[in-house]
């Protein structure tokens, strides 16, 4: 069963189908959403774009669910899909090593060159000890995603999943369509 859904694109944000009002677009809109709806989690500013989009979408989703308590739990999984994996972070990291005269690789940039980091960010924020997973398919396919998430309930402990599509090709192009799926 699907409970609550959040959509984020560079110029539109919807929670349970209802549009949220915002002034900015693109990457500055993400910062605006953070200041308006989160505000107390400065780690946000260290994140790459994929993690920012996934993190903000999860915050809006969990606010819609209500009763946020941040108590440790193992029965909730975070499972996302996308097309571009960590391409924005990869491109950024590559720019730090491309030129031997300007070679400055850093752990802070390298760690985000893994798409599953966003699932870890959400697990850390909410103290989720459950399953976290990230998969890539080259085109959005609702049937593949829903079937995969239903399969995830074969885990003996998983009772609900924050799941869906979180994609980003560069700082200004991103999309999140995520929801909470509960075990039938």
């Amino acid at each position, binding site marked *: 069963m699907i409970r609550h859904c959040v959509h984020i694109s560079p110029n539109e944000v919807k929670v349970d189908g209802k549009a949220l009002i915002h002034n900015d677009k693109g990457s500055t809109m993400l910062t605006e959403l953070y200041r308006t709806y989160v505000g107390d989690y400065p780690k946000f500013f260290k994140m790459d774009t994929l993690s920012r989009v996934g993190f903000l979408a999860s915050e809006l989703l969990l606010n819609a669910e209500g009763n946020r308590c941040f108590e*440790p739990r*193992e029965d909730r999984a*975070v499972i996302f899909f996308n*097309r*571009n*994996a960590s*391409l924005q972070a*990869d*491109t950024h*990291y*590559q720019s730090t*090593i*491309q030129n*031997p005269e300007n*070679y400055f*690789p*850093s*752990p802070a940039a*390298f*760690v985000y*060159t*893994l*798409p*599953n*980091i966003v*699932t*870890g*960010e959400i*697990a*850390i924020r*909410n*103290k*989720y*000890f*459950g*399953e*976290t*997973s*990230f*998969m*890539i*398919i*080259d*085109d959005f*396919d609702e049937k*593949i995603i829903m*079937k*995969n998430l*239903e*399969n*995830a309930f*074969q*885990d*003996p*402990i998983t009772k609900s999943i924050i799941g869906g599509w979180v994609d980003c090709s560069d700082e200004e192009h991103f999309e999140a369509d995520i929801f909470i799926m509960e075990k039938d």
Partner: protein
Amino acid sequence: MEEKIGGKRMIVKVSDNIISPLGTTSAENYAAVKAGMSALRRYDGLWGLPEPFFASLLDRKAYADDRQTIDEKIVIDSISKALEGTVIDTTWTKVLFIISTTKGNVFLLDERENGLPKERVRLGMMAREVTKHFCNPNEPIVVSNACISGVCAQIEAMRYLESGEYDYVIVCGVDVQSAFIVSGFQSFKALSQEACKPFDANRCGLNLGDAAATIIYTRKDKVNDNEWVACRGAIRNDANHISGPSRVGEGSYRALRVALGDLDPSELAFINAHGTATPYNDEMESIAIERAGLSSVPVNSLKGYYGHTMGAAGVLETIISMQAIDDHNILATRGFDTLGVTHHLDVTDQNRNTEKRVFIKLLSGFGGCNAALLMAKGGVQ
């Protein structure tokens, strides 16, 4: 023939393959590992990197091609070899491909690489290159969960088979090292300047390695004593830090607990740990293994033979561990001498005989993720 209690279907290994610097079949690889061989060596100035590094690398020239990348080549090669002698027709709709990789064709982002289309840096495009080769009609799934991807891909395969959606799942893990990956691990100060020493008191970091490894799984109602069964797997998060393991081994302990289920730990031949030889990883695993009540179970790591093969590691290390049990052997942990973790572990310093038929494959990765998989020859009750 014995039937599993409860009549539940079992997920069974059909065949496997490893392409690595130590060989191009699972048997060749196992023989090399059993003999204590490794391709780990020092590279100076390779790919224009300012610092030298130790790694286990494939001969790039042997796989050079203007149509496919080395990642695609060795995946196709590994899957082709795993398919030999099976009845599987990859054009069937009931065959699914799952690719496990962390960085795939990331080297294509380098401005100096201009031979192949840049879109192949997308992992889904790389995977489609593979399914196109095998004329498979299904969209391939790429699992990219950092260093635990290879076990996650096997867990996904088990789920797809259990649900009945597919009859065969071909799981292939791959990663090929590049300036991108090596410079990143160097920036983390995570690389050792010599062959790595898992769980050792003098361990000082990991080595990286190239490999592709394939396991094909199917679903059966009955298995015989010699068939390998993927019994249970779990993925759990530390919820602690994106680039450092939990100080209490939280996710690894929880994954182990689910994979172990109600199995008596005395049935375990060994735990094949992640054992990267970084100070934090190996310490964390010792805590998780103790918390799970498994301190008396022999532990080994294969990183001293192959380095850390990233997306391939979970598949490759599962295959080598199955080969070891088939040979009644618990493999030595190459590079290990003196225990250097605070919680007691029985780390193997040489090959040991065993008649046990069950093992656990354990992995951890960036993003706080951990995975454990229980494999049993002939299945478990």
